[in-house]
């Protein structure tokens, strides 16, 4: 039988029947296909959202990664990758995607704000509370620019 244990290349594990979704109360999107995107990306995010709703998380992640291949420096896509990873409980991956997204997010933009919130969430779930607190404190002082 095929071994489905994951290591090394860090594939996305198949978790099509997740035991429980982790509440992510402060994340400002509710669906992967929210917002305005290039039509190709929008098409992929729509498929990703459909897959997510069907609890096919692996397929959802794959669609978002295809969107990343098209626009590899779009912070919105990294945000969605991190958001999905956090929903799956893949907190280290969520942190990684958030940090990657921040590389490409314009300073003071809404997506930068969201990515920092995502980063803080992922850090909290790794018990790195101090780091998360600092990020939240800084965010409290900043107001994101309008729009996405």
């Amino acid at each position: 039988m095929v071994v489905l244990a994951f290591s090394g290349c860090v594939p996305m594990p198949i978790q099509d029947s997740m035991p429980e979704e982790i509440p992510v109360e402060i994340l400002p999107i509710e669906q992967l296909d929210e917002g305005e995107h290039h039509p190709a990306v929008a098409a992929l995010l729509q498929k990703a959202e459909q897959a997510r709703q069907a609890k096919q998380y692996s397929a959802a992640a794959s669609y978002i990664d295809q969107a990343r291949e098209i626009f590899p420096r779009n912070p919105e896509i990294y945000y969605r990758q991190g958001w999905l990873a956090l929903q799956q409980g893949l907190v280290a991956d969520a942190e990684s995607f958030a940090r990657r997204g921040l590389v490409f997010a314009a300073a003071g933009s809404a997506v930068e704000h969201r990515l920092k919130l995502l980063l803080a969430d992922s850090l909290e779930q790794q018990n790195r509370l101090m780091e998360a607190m600092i990020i939240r404190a800084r965010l409290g002082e900043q107001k994101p620019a309008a729009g996405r």
Partner: protein
Amino acid sequence: MIVDMSQKKSPKAPKGSPKKSAKPLNKKPFKPWWFWFFQLLAVLLVCLTVWAVWLDAQVRERFDGRKWTLPAKVYARPLMLYPGQLLSPAQLLAELKWADYHFDPALAYPGSYRQQGQNFVIHRRAFQFWDAVEPSKVLEIIIDHDRVQQINHNGRAVALVRLEPQYIGGIFPAHNEDRELLRLQDVPKELVAALVQTEDRDFFNHVGVSFKGIARAMLANVRAGGVVQGGSTLTQQLVKNFFLTSERSLVRKANEAMMALLLELHYSKEEILQAYLNEVYLGQAGRRAIHGFGLASRFYFAKPLNELQHEEIALLVGLVKGASYYNPRRHPQRAKQRRDLVLDLMATNGTITLAQRIQAQGRPLLVADAQRAGQREYPAFIELARQQLQQDYRLEDLQTEGLRIFTTLDPWAQHAVEQAANKHLALLEQRFPEHRQKLEIAAVITSVDGGEINALLGGRDAEFFGFNRAINAKRSIGSLAKPIVYLTALENPQWHWGTLVDDSPVQISLGGGKLWEPQNFDKQSHGTMSMVDALAHSYNQATARLGMQVGLANIANNFKRLGVSDNLPPYPSITLGSALLSPLEVAGMYQGIASQGFVMPLRTIQAVTDGSGNMLSAYATRGKQEFSPEMMQWLTWGLTQVTERGTARALSRQLPLPLAAKTGTSNDQRDSWFVGFDNRHLGVVWVGRDDNQPTPLVGGSAALPIWQDSFKTIGVEPLPAQGSLPWVRVDETGMLVGDGCDGRLYPMLASRVPQNIPPCETQFQQEQKKRKSWFDWLF
């Protein structure tokens, strides 16, 4: 009946029998011949029964279970098409051909296309991707200035489509058998009829063995004075291929006959026929044995079985008699004769009409190119993919479970590297005939942001299954190490690109009285210069001095942070590339620079599904932001100076765009390296000899042109301006000075720009200073 004679009294001895002893003889009674006959018969029957039961168990076990081990099928990346995508018509055309698309103005069938200038209309085939099944569709692709302008389907604009990926190889078990399984209902009726008519016309009437067939064959053989015809039925042929060896002996023949009878006893004619259609050997593609009509159709005609014409069906059926002897590529005359014979039989038996027979026999023997991309393999890439897959899957499963592996290989990029390598190795060997056939190459192309391996060349023979230099050749990296030294310096606030470094001769004590005295390639010293000039011109003395100042342990640590797994000892020579790394490891190291500090494992796999298309795993880019993006942008600017005015300036003549690169040449010019990246791809090229002998080559002359040609074909996208870095003016002493002063502009980390840069000395003050110094000098 078996009689126990031991329980019976002995009858009288027959008259005339010799008396051997005085003692009364316990003589055994005489047994009539029939007794022995039945005794023997009984024993034979028992043996026969045991034999039959044993064979029956074998037949049922094998035939009931999974009949074949199915190697994993490996695919390249699918070509995604969307408006705005960089795509030349030449690339689209090549990719269509590699995916076995045929030009057909009528677009009559899936797998056909037509082209009008830069507009394509493609009848895309249905395909089961790892995430969805996509139906066949007619798509209009409009390209302008090497970018997709629009995609239409049924007159409506489409945002995104994928072309099915090219098959690039398999992960085979030791016997290297490959096949594409078919169901009987998917096989053209004409093919089944032709096969039966040609190979076993009594197939639907016999019980596995045809005595009529044997008699007919014997007669034909006697008439011909040799073996010209076999009497084996299709069932026997299947048994021979499926259960037995090709040994020619009576025992094997008996086993074959018995198993054929048993097979017919348990299974229907349809089941046997379906197994035969999938089992039969029909050709050889390198190491890969082509079994079954499904795969043979793709191999010989580049199309699925249900699209074959009568003459093509006849050719495949003709191959059953001897795939090697009637190989249409090697022996076209023989193959055509055989094909025409099969067509005769088809017409005689009413499978095709007379007119169809005449028409089909009049057609030339047309087979697809065996070397075309859709049939060739990519051994270097497949080997790496297999290694990476084995982190998650057992090799046995990869070889037998019929998995489908979707990879990151970009056939266009691979094609570009192979073409460039062939061209430039030939030119180099023309120039240096003493190295003819001795130069080797390895190359890796990755995507800058995702770390996907798009192309991998393991040697000059891209289709050779052997030593894979891209993965296994650990070679001295020479000056490719220098950016790590400069990165280590830039991390320290003491240094920036304008800081002066000293390129005078240097002696470094290695302990034990040993001295290390590195020299520049040109054996000259160049005095003091800015750090970026030392990197751009790849000066050894300056770099060794700088390395000693920034700390060897810090440099070794940065190698590690960039993903180099080997523990590099912090010797002084580490600064000039004494480390031995494979091209793949070099690509991994530079990936962290190109991707602005995101260090990620390079990957070949996108997704894996089982044979039915269910997704087993999907792989996405993972990594760690190991360095700040600003720091890597800063380093990247230094690397752009290598192409602008340094050792790789030849590149800017051909590609006058901002590109980051580094040349590398190891001691005695044993290794020539070139690493470079644009906004999309990173490429590493190594040229050298397997026996590690010196060459007359350097990175800039041997590896650079291969990189350059590859990237010209792939398509170059310039690096963006280092917009986020502020620019500062640095004077000739390496000090930051204000605007309006003499000095060169350098990018700087925003956090390093001082609040108050000293005001610039006025022109008058500078002149006064100069005068004073001249005065002092004179007097």
